[in-house]
């Protein structure tokens, strides 16, 4: 019988990379059977700590001790830690899209029968049992690519269960999930807790931390700040620990100075790109004025991104109809370069896939959407480009030694600032910002909000798409709600509150 209540003790962990001390003297104690949250800004050292724990950084590359179930561990690689029942599920899921659910669950742990060949009946029936445990109603032979991200996350957990997991580590598990899937996942974590599985959950989302965790450890700048028990957890206390200062206001003040209407969209309809009978955006009409910040609230898949991208030079969808008016005059936007020429900018929700060229430097990313401004006779002025990028590096507070730093090496917040710089440099009148603060830490979020306010103060019309209601309520002047591709309501900020918005966002309208 264990005499120690702690299943895991990480004692005085110190990890240095050439030139950087990523972790210094970090201590983490996890009680058996609890859900333990780890909070911290991006770059605080959370992921490094988990990599030390799971053996990605093997024994000898760090200082300190890992004690698991009262024994000092010496992990040489991730297999070692898994053999002891420590399983980590990374933010980017490690599933093979063309293999079935069952094949993925037993990848590298194949269920064998006679002659060492794979026993498919056993594989599929065992997988079905695991799926039942995580509450996923899918056929084990379904291919991974045919199920959504939320379900994929559950498959990852089923895979962990198949390895007889004792300590489950989830790195930002709900970052890519909508509210419904997130809730399901959080319930599952609590359910597994009932079965005696201890979990560590890394998350940015304070409300879900409050919901599931029994204690919270906050890490800042590679050091443990404190561990807070459930009774004492408040959002403000976590934020204060994370940023090291009180954030009086999580959202900067913003007094709107509204001008003329800049953009008006009428009866915008778009269909699915492959299946042109499926309506994705249904008769959407909206408008934005100069200096105004307008929010679009909607669940994932409600058609928010589809609307924005179909508007932005028809970069999404098929059979698109509707009218767009810019400063009262109707305009046609057949492609992206025409959208940019008309002063419309769209900063994507997925900056790594759609926003940045990660192998290029800051300079070339910033200039990408408006190279014409920097060139004569089709030739780019390198020096001028350097100067412009450097100005943005300073004014947007992009944390990088020079603009020659590759964007792939920047943190999420700084990458987002590069994306914003790119679009601001294209001189837009209308900026559509799709999930502008996704995966960004609290401090950088505040900076992004400040930038958005500054742009509005300069008279730009801004549309913010977000699934974080507090964010929309914190920064917008007016909010549209969208559900199943339709605008289901429009609320001025004075009348908007989370309850009203959620009601509109989940409203089902008969077709």
């Amino acid at each position, binding site marked *: 019988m264990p005499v120690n209540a702690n299943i895991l003790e990480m004692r005085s962990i110190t990890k240095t*990379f*050439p030139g950087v001390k990523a972790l210094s003297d970090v201590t983490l104690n996890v009680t058996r059977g609890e859900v333990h949250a780890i909070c911290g800004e991006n770059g605080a050292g959370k992921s490094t700590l988990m990599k030390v724990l799971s053996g990605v950084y093997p024994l000898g590359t760090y200082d300190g001790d890992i004690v698991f179930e009262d024994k000092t561990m010496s992990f040489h690689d991730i297999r070692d830690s898994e053999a002891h029942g420590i399983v980590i599920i990374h933010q980017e899921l490690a599933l093979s899209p063309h293999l079935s659910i069952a094949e993925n669950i037993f990848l590298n742990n194949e269920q064998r029968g006679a002659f060492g060949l794979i026993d498919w009946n056993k594989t599929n029936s065992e997988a079905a049992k695991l799926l039942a445990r995580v509450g996923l109603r899918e056929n084990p032979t379904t291919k991974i690519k045919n199920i959504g991200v939320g379900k994929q996350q559950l498959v990852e957990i089923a895979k962990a269960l198949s390895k007889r997991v004792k300590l489950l580590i989830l790195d930002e598990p709900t970052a890519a999930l909508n509210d419904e899937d997130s809730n399901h996942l959080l319930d599952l974590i609590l359910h597994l807790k009932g079965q005696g599985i201890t979990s560590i959950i890394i998350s940015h989302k304070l409300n879900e931390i409050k919901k599931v965790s029994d204690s919270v450890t906050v890490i800042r700048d590679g050091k443990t700040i404190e561990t807070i028990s459930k009774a004492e957890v408040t959002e403000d206390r976590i934020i204060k620990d994370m940023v090291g200062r009180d954030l009086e206001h999580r959202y900067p003040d913003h007094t709107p100075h509204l001008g003329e209407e800049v953009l008006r969209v009428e009866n915008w309809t778009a269909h699915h790109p492959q299946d042109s009978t499926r309506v994705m955006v249904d008769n959407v009409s909206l408008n934005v004025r100069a200096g105004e910040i307008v929010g679009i609230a909607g669940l994932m898949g409600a058609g928010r991104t589809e609307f924005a991208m179909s508007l*932005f*030079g028809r*970069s999404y969808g098929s059979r698109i109809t509707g009218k767009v008016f810019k400063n009262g005059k109707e305009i046609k936007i057949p*492609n*992206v*370069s025409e*959208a*940019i020429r008309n002063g419309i900018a*769209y900063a*994507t929700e997925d900056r790594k*896939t*759609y*926003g*940045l*060229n*990660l*192998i*290029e430097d800051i300079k*070339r990313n910033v*200039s*990408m*959407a408006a*190279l*014409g401004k920097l*060139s004569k006779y*089709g*030739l*780019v002025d*390198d*020096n*001028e480009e*350097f*100067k412009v990028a450097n100005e943005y590096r300073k004014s947007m507070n992009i944390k990088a*030694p*020079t603009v*020659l730093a590759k964007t792939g*090496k920047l943190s999420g917040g700084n990458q987002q600032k590069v994306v914003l710089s*790119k679009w601001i440099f294209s001189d837009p009148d209308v900026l559509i910002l799709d999930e502008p603060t996704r995966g960004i830490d609290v401090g950088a979020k505040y900076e992004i909000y400040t930038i958005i306010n500054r742009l509005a103060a300069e008279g730009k019309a801004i549309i913010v798409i977000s699934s974080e209601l507090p964010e929309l309520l914190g920064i917008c002047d007016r909010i549209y709600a969208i559900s199943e591709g339709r605008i289901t309501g429009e609320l001025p900020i004075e009348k908007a509150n989370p309850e009203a918005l959620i009601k509109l966002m989940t409203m089902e309208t008969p077709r």
Partner: protein
Amino acid sequence: MTDTKPASTETIGPPENRFTASLTHILADLGKNGIFLALIAVIILFSITTDGILLRPQNISNLIVQNGYILILAIGMVLVIVAGHIDLSVGSVAAFVGAVSGVFAVQMGLPWWLSIILSLLVGGVVGAWQGFWIAYVGIPAFIVTLAGMLIFRGLALVVLGNANIGSFPSEYRALGNGFLTDLLGAYQVDPVTMGIAVIAIIALVFQQIRTRRGRLQYAQAVEPLVWFIAKLALIVAGIGFFAYALATFKGIPITLIILAVLVMIYGVLTTKSVFGRHIYAIGGNRHAAELSGVKTRQVDFWIFVNMGFLAALAGLVFTARLNLAGPKAGEGFELEAISAAFIGGAAVQGGIGTIAGAIIGGLIIGVLNNGMSIMGIGIEWQQAVKGLVLLLAVAFDVFNKRRSGGR
């Protein structure tokens, strides 16, 4: 070599002394120009094993003329690879255009200049055909050009009608065999060659100083002055030696002039032009480029039109050199051109690659071919060695990136 200097020197905290600063810079520079050093190493190696025959004037001249068409193809191939594609058809296209040019210049008796222009146009049309399928229909370049490899090899045979076409007009032949010489009569050392070399050197030095000034004006990091001068002196000495060698043989080969013009044009295109930026942007992240207003289909299309044009030019040079358009022409060219680009540092995933790199990569292959031939090593071993060099060059590149990549 490119002039993008790492800015690391200015990020290291305390002011260090200038000597160590210069040293770190030079080391970083050498690391990045590893491929150039590899070329020098290969040259030195084969100079020794061939008792100096490799660097004899006649052999240097031969090296250029024998590898000219591969280098021309490598220039186009870099653009294709940077955009994330591949072109397997260039050898067949070169053969096809060579055959077509034979029909124009020999069988139809058109003037040499008209034959050349028409042939280049045919190359462009071939490129447009492949570009159409790749850019607008969306079929992977590997498939389209694999088909093209068969299609145009077949069409070359059809055009040739199972025979060789030969005896081209002398002006046409000059593309592959001609020299810019005898303009001032025969001298021991050709003055035209030396004159052009001097002009080239002055232009180069002037351009380098101008670039450096510009960067300083904008307060950008530049390399230490000593290193700048040393590097420039080294390059000038290299050009001087090279020009002298050519001048004591027959002068500047026409092929070299074509190459020099192409390197200049495509150098500017890749490093300075908006179109070039778009190619790199597409290779780095196609979606992001598209959402930044880059007309990705158009760019893809023109990259292949360009490749077709350059494949045609390579076909003309090769045909001119042999004075014969035959069914076997251009076999394996695609593989040498692709190897040149990859040895020169182009990335398999796209987004990375330079014209200078591809030229150096092509020269490494050329020196290997030439050196081993002089040594009397058989074709079978030459093949194996070239394969190994390609593998090691890319492995070195991968290793280098991993080391500098940190975590």
